[in-house]
């Protein structure tokens, strides 16, 4: 895996670019995307945009743990669904609560699950950690399937307002806007981590945990920070989902597709930098949507599989890796 110095130069941005200016650029890009969507005025564009941007958040969140510290999380849906279900619960209790607050709550809930999972499973390494996270997703799905308040196996309906608050227009535009803001947050956080001491600590853990400890890196604390942050962003990505689909049921929100995509996208884009998951999400997410509309909704899974095989063979460091300086 390429070094952290490379990471900051690949982004096409100057190495010295400060976190604030980077975030401003991100906001500008997100703003332009939104304005372009408005100008197009096609409702479907917002649905598609929502899906792709949701994957930017999900894969960036996965990469904070999987790419930076090397702990491969197969239980993406456990955290993602925690966000969705916390929204359902909040909707049942206080339907008038604004969406951003629901997203925040979803993030806190999933972050806490991440912290707990981290504490229980981080003594496991490599594939054993991955298996434990997969088990977590199964446990969560079983719990939700048997919880009446959130509809159990039947699922729960969430009536979304017809009009978007604040910005007007269709509600899906509001969902898209929220997801864009989340993506800006997630990507800015990921990049900040890379450039901070935290990023070096994560990389040290990924390369050799015992050596990291011997160098003074508090590995357990850092891994807990990673699982918490990663879980929180996944939860936030899942929180608006009940509003988007107007319905939430266990088999769809715990679908393996989310986990496969959240892992495949960073791998295809490149796990060593914030840019990788973004490229991966846009490329794979976009292709999937295209195939879903033009060919069939089943073939889109094939896209990920094929791309993943191609990239593992031809470009194991992902698209970002192709442009990195060879040393």
């Amino acid at each position, binding site marked *: 895996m390429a070094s952290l110095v490379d990471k900051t130069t690949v982004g096409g941005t100057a190495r010295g670019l400060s976190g604030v200016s980077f975030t401003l650029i991100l906001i500008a890009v997100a703003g332009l995307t939104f304005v372009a969507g408005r100008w197009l005025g096609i409702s479907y564009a917002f649905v598609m945009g929502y899906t792709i941007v949701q994957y930017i958040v999900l894969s960036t969140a996965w990469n904070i743990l999987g790419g930076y510290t090397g702990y491969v999380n197969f239980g993406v849906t456990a955290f993602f669904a925690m966000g969705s279900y916390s929204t359902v619960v909040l909707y049942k209790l206080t339907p008038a609560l604004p969406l951003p607050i629901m997203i925040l709550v979803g993030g806190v809930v999933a972050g806490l699950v991440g912290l707990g999972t981290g504490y229980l499973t981080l003594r496991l390494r490599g594939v054993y950690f991955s298996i434990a996270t997969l088990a977590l997703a199964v446990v969560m799905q079983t719990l939700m399937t048997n919880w009446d308040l959130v509809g159990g196996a039947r699922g729960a309906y969430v009536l979304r307002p017809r009009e978007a608050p604040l910005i007007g227009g269709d509600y899906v535009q509001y969902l898209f806007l929220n997801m864009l803001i989340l993506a800006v947050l997630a990507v800015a956080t990921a990049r900040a981590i890379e450039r901070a001491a935290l990023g070096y600590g994560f990389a040290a853990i990924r390369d050799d945990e*015992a050596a990291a*400890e011997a160098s003074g*890196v*508090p590995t357990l604390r850092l891994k807990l920070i990673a699982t918490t942050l990663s879980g929180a962003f996944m939860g936030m990505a899942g929180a608006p989902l009940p509003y988007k689909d107007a319905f939430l049921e266990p088999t769809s929100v715990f679908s393996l597709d989310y986990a496969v995509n959240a892992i495949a996208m960073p791998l295809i884009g490149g796990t060593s930098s914030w840019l990788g998951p973004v490229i991966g999400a846009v490329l794979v997410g976009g292709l999937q949507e295209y195939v879903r509309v033009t060919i069939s909704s089943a073939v889109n899974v094939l896209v990920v599989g094929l791309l993943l095989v191609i990239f593992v063979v031809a470009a194991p460091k992902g698209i970002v890796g192709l442009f990195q300086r060879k040393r």
Partner: protein
Amino acid sequence: MTALLQVDGVGKRFGGFVALDGIQLDVREGERLGLIGPNGSGKSTLVNCICGTLRNEQGQVRFAGETLDGLAAHERTHRGLARSFQLPRPFTSLSLAENVRIPIIYTVNARGRHGLTGAAIDARCLEVLGEVGLAAKADRLPRDLTQIEMRKLELARAMAADPRLLIADEAMAGLSHGEVDEIIALLIRLNGQGVTIIMIEHIMRAVMEFSQRIAVLVAGRKIADGDPKEVVRDPEVVRAYLGE
């Protein structure tokens, strides 16, 4: 005067196998101690118990008067204990400069006495690499290094933590005659700067040249401790190495 490192009755078993049996060892500040023993005698296990990688079931390790029981490895590093690994374990995806940067930002800066920032960290990284002659390769990855350079990087990373006590675990295994001399010179220079050093080594020439005192472990027990010349003539030590 109390010793910098006090190993007091440390015992460690792996299942039914007694790896360390009531080890008693004091190391004074500024001392150069050689720790020898046949393979499997418990040298690395002792290092792991001192550094917190393993937990000892019996006894206590005290460092600078403070007992280390229950402290994680990184907390011991923060208190001034540093070690190099028997087999080099570099951070493979990080450049050499970044390898030594980790202990600087996580140990030296964590002590909070003179936290370094920005350019000062970069300068310190190069300085540490310079001390082991690797400054020219600061931007390279560990995979580009030769065996001796890898050992030097291992030592540089331990040195970058500004330790009071450095434990060099077989830093010279597999090196040539001249390379061994280089590492010895490096360790003696470091000792001259006030760092206490425990050297674990099989190469007797290196041990004799380096050590002011030698301790011998055999089958988890310390059988000798004292002046190098006397220790190597000790009948029990000779028997452990050469047989009856």
